[in-house]
């Protein structure tokens, strides 16, 4: 009889976790970037010379999507998905799923709020473009927790792989 948790086999739980990490990070990044983009395009309409200073700010919430992608690929690398014939019991698969949750949720929330913080920073650049460097710092603080969630997910996956 097949080993299942809530009717789902281990391999599917692992896929579910990897997908959720990529979805959470990716959706958060998409929302965060679009939030700041709406403001930035308005500023550039008024002053096209600020494009170069505003671009890093707009790209900033994109890193959470990368963290989600990394977590998904770590699942594939650590558990032999690329080599084919990956075998996971339902318990192991469920553990992999749980290990992906920190990135899935924290990266989503972090990217959305980083986008909101970046809107304020974009306003700062619009008024005082000489402070473009300082403006990058505050949204960057929001990302700290996305990095921590990545560290935690990576450590959990590492323990499971061992």
């Amino acid at each position: 009889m097949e080993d299942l948790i809530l009717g789902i086999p281990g391999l599917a739980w692992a896929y579910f976790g990897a997908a959720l990490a990529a979805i959470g990070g990716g959706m958060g990044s998409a929302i965060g970037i679009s939030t700041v983009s709406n403001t930035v395009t308005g500023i550039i309409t008024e002053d096209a010379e600020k494009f170069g200073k505003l671009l890093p700010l707009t790209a900033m919430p994109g890193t959470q999507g990368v963290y989600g992608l990394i977590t998904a690929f770590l699942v594939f690398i650590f558990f032999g998905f690329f080599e084919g014939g990956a075998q996971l019991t339902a318990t192991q698969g469920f553990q992999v799923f749980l290990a992906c949750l920190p990135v899935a949720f924290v990266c989503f929330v972090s990217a959305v709020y980083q986008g909101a913080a970046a809107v304020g920073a974009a306003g700062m650049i619009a008024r005082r473009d000489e402070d473009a460097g300082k403006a990058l710092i505050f949204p960057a603080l929001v990302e700290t927790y996305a990095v921590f969630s990545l560290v935690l997910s990576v450590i959990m996956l590492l323990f499971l792989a061992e």
Partner: protein
Amino acid sequence: MAVARMLKVSLIGHRSVLDECIHLVQRAGVVEVTVTEFAAEEVNPLEPDQARLNELEEKTARASFVRDFLRRFHTPDVPFASLISEKVHLSVTEYERLVDEECLGELCVECDDMAERLAVNEREQARLRHLAHDLAPWDGLHLQISQWKGTEHVALFNGTVPVARSAEIRQTLREEVTDVSVAEVGTAGPLEAWVVMAYRDSLEDVRSILALTEFVEVSFPGLDDYPAEERSRALATLEQLEKEHAEIEVKATELAAEYYHRAVALVQSLSTRKDAEEARACLHASERTFFVTGWVPERRREELFAALAPLEPGVDLTFAEPDVGDSVPVELINPRILKPFEVLTDLYGRPVYGDIDPTPLLAGFFFLFFGITIGDVGYGLMLLGGAWFVKNRLDVAAGVRKFMDLVMLGGISSMLVGVATRGYFALPEEALPPFLQYEPLIDPLGQLELFLVLSVVLGVIQVSFGVLVSAYRRWQQGDVAGAVFEDLTTIAMFLAVGMAVAWSEYAGAILAWSFGVVVVLKGRIVERIVVDRSATGALAGVGKGLLGLYGLVGYTSDFLSYTRLAALGLASLLVGDVMNRIAGLVSGAPYGTGLLAAALILIVGHTFNVLINLLGGFIHSMRLQFVEFFGKFYEGSGRPYAPFAPRTKSVVLHPDPGAPEGGA
């Protein structure tokens, strides 16, 4: 490696050389002019020449208008123009003469006329487009608009309804009112045109019923002819207006090509002249002399002497050390290798005059941290090459060149870390040539725990260094007790935790004894008992000591914050690995398309990875300096040195070839 020594300069001169003196000081660009109180009889503050100021402001407004108008039609001829603003290159004399040769008066009138014509043209085009759109449903009505009237007993009015709701509205109307007739004239897009005729007795009922529907009454005041004729006339006029608009744009583009750069430079030159006029407000003068003070870096004192040499003996300079309480501006002087790291100090804020310049303290850490976050020889080379190209091949501002130096150093650091981790475009060992298949010092993926621990150890080192710098500062300021009881006890606390980790079998005893000592020292309990002889003071000291011990929680959070270095390093490696794997998956496609797609994926993918990691690596390495490191000892509330100098935004000034030194 420090904050530059500043001198307070006092300049006294004869009034006959006042204007020339202001000009030469501004051109030298080494003095930050200050407003000083001067209490002496027959000496009064100078006032700027208001008439001259008004004239300059008027000229600046005109030049700014011309610049902004022509910018709309100017095509920059520099590469990456959307990222890098175009620069105008001039000699100093050319720049200064721009104001006197100003010939934008006629051009301003021409630009004003063109701007007005364009605005009127665009408004008229918008009106005609709207009219043509509104007339479209009425094209089939063979009744002149002037005849859209009722008779004595019958009212006639026109309007549109949505095609999809037409039948429903007509049905509603007929159910409620019998004396009404609706003629469907035609449709255009989603709208259908109606001519509604009703007995005047029923008019109110008809209108009130239609008001509840999506019927929109339409009229064309000022038009008399058939709708189709009027529409065709509007479209013909529109075509003519578009042609005129294009002609004006061509003319404006020609003007932009000829005058845009000149207008950009002129705005700056006029602003420079205005600054010179306004600087008079900082001066004091008697009947025959004037007096001004300012700040000059000691190392640039000779430049000021050289600049004012042509006015000798009409001016006299005296220098003095800053007084206590003076708000001294800060300039940083560092060796060439450390100069790029000043970008980071400037981002946070310069130190107060006389305080430590944190640039050399953070440089090594930032260099290493940035390298860890990228950690690849290939990516390091890309950063090095890209930054070198921007610095040396593109016309960028001095600040951008300095930042590119920092990126180049980051590239070198990434290469060094890449060699240590055997990172070459994130390729696996078997894909590397044999001479690169060496055992790495650390494998970020295979030895991830070690990588994480290493990043925390780096955090412990930097935070401890920050605490030691704080102790040094307190010691220098005479607060020896603070240095010992606040900072050195913190280091002792770190050592105790380190020893407990190293000798875990004695951890309990080590921590109990050392934390006890730390509480006593941090709370200054012995001092309170022996010197103050106060029992309540001693109790308060215990509380303070315990609070100091609790600070260890904050430091632990600081140390953990450095795990981001390992996380970002891993992110760089894995995204690169993903690109390599995807390229590997598609490379087998037939007819060479696979190889082409793989090459494209590798180029775009690795470039994306470098750019996203440059952003992350720079910001997070910088954040560790600002939050975790600076938080221990640095305030950064100093005032940057801002010399009185010509304005050069979007303008690059070159020295006059063969011009006499300091001459105008």
